[in-house]
Structures are given as C-alpha cells and as structure tokens.
C-alpha cells in the first residue's frame, strides 16, 4: 500500500517536472534554477505552465478519487461521474450560470453553477440507486441522465442569439487545461480539495459496506451518511473541475481499475492511490496532448474519451453476466 503510494507519488513528481519543462518557449526548470529566465519566460513558466500542471493534478486526483468512491459506494465497476451523468449535470449547471448572465458578478459563479448542476445530477442518481440496484439499470439511468442534460444544454444553446456562445460550449465540452490562469486555479482548488477531503473520509465506511449494508450498520456505519458524503464530495470536486476544464470523461472509470490490481478490492484502500493515479494519468495525458503531432493541440477531453470509451465497452462485456 505504502509502496504503491510512493511509486505513484514519485511518478507524479516526475511528470510534474516534465510538464513544467514542456512548451513552445525555452522556459524550463533548468533556467529557473540557474536564474537565467527572462521576464517573458518567467511569466510563461509561472502564469501558464505552473497553473496548467497544477490544475491537471487537482482535476485528475478529483476524478480518480470520485470514480473510486462511487464504484465502492454503488458496488458497481462501471460507476463514474461522466458515465452516470454527473459531469453532464455540471456542464448544464455551468451553462445556466453562463447564459443567465450571472457570471458577470465574478469568476466564482461558474464553478458554483457546475457544483449545483453536479449535485442535482448526483441526487437523481442516488434516488435511482435507492429504487433499482441492478448494474444494467444504473447504466441505463446514467445514459438517460446524460441524454437529458445534453438535451437541456442544447435547448439553452438553441435559445441563444449569440453564435459564439455555441462555439464556447463546444470547445468547453472538449475539455482542456490550455491557457488556464492562476486565478482560475485558485478559485477551483479549495472546492476540489474540500470535495476530495469529503471523499477520503469515507474510506473506512466504504470498506465495511463491502460486507453488506446490515453488517456495516451493525459496525456503526451510517449508510445514508456515507452515501451523502460520497455524493456531495463528488458533486463539489467534479463540479468545480468541470466548470474550469470542461468535460473530461472516463478518468474515474479507468483509474480505479488500473490501481485495483496493486491494492486489491478494498474500496477504502483504493481511494488515495486512485487520487494519485488520476493525477498522474491526467498529467501524462496533458503532456501528450502538448507533444502530439496534430496541427493544433489535442483536447484532453477528446483523448480521455478515446481511451476510456473502448475500456468502458470492454468492462461492460466483462461484466455482462452481472448486467443481465
């Protein structure tokens, strides 16, 4: 357990340095340490690369952690914020904030919109889970929620008199860390940290929940409280992440599955390594997007969807006995 955390922590530090080193200008760590950076290079380093890398770590950790927590809570290997419609809910919430004109009050309105959208979606998922416990039912509910939120977002767009608003949303839905500022990072970081803290606190309860709800209750675990913590934590962390970086799907699905062979099937033990692995995964993916050979920078949400969707199909086939 400690070994995997150490390996992931070291890898994360390594990729953080690579990420800071990589860009159009020669403004890397070497120049920073030797004090040979010009003011322009220093601005690029501190105001572009640093917030970008930091944001990739925070968002990756939030998505990985929320995926692990949801899979543990729902005892469902396919549970993840984007599959269950929570990310789409965050997009809708942020869009409402954007088009209602509320965002002129300040940059914190957008993450707040994302949070409320994610919360509403998570609450709907929760209601469904109480009534239907089959894996297939949950996935179908997630698909229906995704479709519903997409339709509502499209409805908002179709009312827009501004063609640029449509472009804005399209780019945003692709997901990206490009050109994000320190101020944007500072606005969402507390929310992501708060949400992640709420999720990490559920470790022991999730561990006992694997033995069944009755055993967990007899051990003093409040199932409803754990459920609320996971849903709220996911809504806060994912809502904030989506509001500043757009839709980055499948990270919460992929990462816990990649970590599970190393830590076993205890959801409590999976949380922290999933956060670390999520951060490593998104940092690696973002670095690849910047290195990629395409004429324009690849959007990270597109890359994670390209990787995650086939994995989702693979998992769905693997668990087909449970699905039917």
């Amino acid at each position, binding site marked *: 357990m400690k070994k995997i955390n150490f390996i992931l922590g070291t890898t994360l530090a390594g990729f953080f340095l690579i990420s800071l080193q990589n860009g*159009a200008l020669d403004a890397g760590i070497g120049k920073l340490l030797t004090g040979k950076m010009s003011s322009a290079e220093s601005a*690029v380093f501190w*105001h*572009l*690369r640093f917030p970008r890398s930091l944001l990739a770590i925070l968002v990756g950790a939030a998505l990985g952690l929320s995926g692990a927590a949801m899979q543990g809570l729902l005892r469902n290997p396919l549970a993840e914020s984007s599959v269950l419609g929570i990310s789409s809910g965050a997009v809708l919430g942020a869009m409402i904030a954007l088009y209602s004109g509320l965002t002129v009050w300040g*940059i914190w309105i957008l993450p707040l919109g994302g949070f409320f959208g994610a919360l509403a979606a998570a609450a709907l998922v929760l209601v469904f889970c109480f009534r239907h416990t089959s894996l297939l039912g949950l996935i179908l509910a997630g698909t229906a929620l995704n479709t519903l939120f997409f339709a509502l977002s499209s409805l908002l767009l179709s009312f827009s008199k501004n063609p640029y608003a449509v472009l804005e949303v399209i780019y945003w839905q692709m997901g990206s860390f490009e050109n994000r*500022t320190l101020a*944007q990072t500072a606005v969402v970081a507390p929310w992501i940290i708060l949400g992640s803290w709420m999720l990490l606190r559920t470790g022991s309860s999730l561990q006992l929940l694997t033995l069944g709800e009755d055993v967990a209750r007899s051990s003093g675990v409040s199932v409803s409280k754990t459920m609320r913590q996971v849903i709220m934590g996911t809504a806060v962390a994912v809502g904030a992440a989506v509001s500043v970086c757009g839709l980055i799907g499948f990270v919460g699905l992929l990462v816990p599955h990649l970590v599970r062979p190393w830590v076993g099937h205890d959801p409590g033990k999976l949380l922290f390594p999933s956060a670390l692995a999520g951060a490593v995964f998104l940092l690696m993916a973002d670095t690849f997007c910047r290195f990629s050979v395409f004429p324009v920078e690849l959007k990270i949400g597109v890359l994670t969807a390209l990787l995650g969707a086939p994995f989702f199909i693979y998992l769905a086939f693997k668990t087909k006995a449970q699905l039917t």
Partner: protein
Amino acid sequence: MRRQNQELRTKNQVSFLRIIFCLGSWFLVLGSFSAHGAERIVSLNACTDELLLQLALPEQVAGVTRFNHSPQSSEVLNQNPHISKLSSDVESIMKTNPSVVLAGPFSNPLLINQLKQLNIPIVHLAVPGNWSDLDKAVGQVSALLKRVPAGEVLQKKIRELSRFDGQTRWQGKRAVFWSAAGHVSGKNTFENTVLTTLGLINVSETEGYAFLSVEKLIQLKPAVIIVTQNPELKNSWSHETLFHPALKKALPKIEYLHIPEEAVSCASEYTVEVVGKLIADAKA
C-alpha cells in the same frame, strides 16, 4: 475512330448548350430582379443579414436570422418589427412569402435544396476575404435590391479604405487578431485585410483561421493585439484567454485595440465604420 470523334463532338455540343441554358436562366433571374428590384428578401446568413439590412429599404426585407447584428442593423430591426427573425425551417421562411433568398456558404444545404424545389430563387454570396470582395458583394446586393446609388455610397467608402496606404502610428508593427479561446486569423481572412489596412503586420502565418496557445503567441512577440470581445460571454474561460495575465507580464508594452465582434465576424458597413474610426484615431 471517326465514330468516337463524332460522339465526342456531340457530347461537347450538349455540354455547351447546357452552359448556355444555365447562364441564360441566371441572367433571366438577375434580369427580372434588376428590372423590378426584389420585393421580399429573406436572408439565411448572419453576414448577408448585415448587407441586406444596411442596403435595403425596410419594406424589402421579409426576414433575417436571429443571430448577432451590428448596432446599425439592430436599429433597423427595432424600428421595423415586421421583419421576421427566422429559424432555419422551410415553413417559417415560406410564411414570409419571399421573392428571393440570400444564402451564405455555410447555409444549410438541405434547406437550400428544399427552397429550390419550392421554386424560390436563391442568391449565394461568398464570404468577403478582402475589401474587393466586400465591394463586389455590396454591388451584387444593391443591384438585386435595385438600390445601386445606396450601394455606391458604401462602395466609395470601401474603395477609400482599400486604397489607404497604411500610414498610421502602428505602421510596421507586429500584430495579431485575437479572439475567444485563442482563435487567430491568418492569411486570406478579412481580419488580415483589416490588419494590413491599419499598417500592421500579421504575426499569424496560418492560412485562414487557427488556434494559438498563449505561450505560442508570446513567442511570436506581437506589439499590438486586436481583441474582439463578446460582452455577453464575459468571465467565460475562452474570453479570459484574451487578457491572460501571462500576456501582460511577458509583453508589458503590448497595446490592446478593441473591436466589437460584430464588426469583423461579418464584413459590412459597420466594419467600414469601425476601421475608418481606428484609422482616424491613429492619425490623430
């Protein structure tokens, strides 16, 4: 061999007749408009909206799109509530009883086909890439409306701008047209023409439109950034890119020029007015 030659000759003759027929029909359509002036025009494109609203008599306009309009066009629309703001369905267009429809290159091809099947004449206008294209488009629309003198007034202003020698305080400076999410305008765009008219050198070497990261922009070291901002999308992440703190820190002497988005998204009378004002300010 002789038979093959004969077949080829017949084919050529058929093609020639087809061309003559098409050209004849086109001239007949144009001729009928120029003789009477189109009565009820519908525009299916935000850019053709602009030209139509600025050149036509209000009673000649049956409908326009519901997208952004320049201040002048918005005023025309406010004063003439009979002008419909259309969505892209055939029925709402047919309800306006159009005598001709103006379409742009990105107009919905299915819709255009349906309108053609209903015998509605369609006039396609290309997106102006420079002053000369805009001059031509104004000529086309004013001829269609039988409002040539109104078109000539605008054409005169356009020709003055196209002849301007670029002697402004920005002459020879490196510049970029910078829009939301890092969208830049390269060669063969109207924005590039605006930069050249103002005496500026476009640092974006791409063909057409492209995306540029803030870091790449800093590497290109522009002295002037022309920003097109949309007030409705204030505080959205893509608009925050326009004034990214790294830009000001890395290039502290950079000069920002603000141009309303509607002035360049569609070349029109408003563009002419905005560029003319910029030149006047720069000379002053």
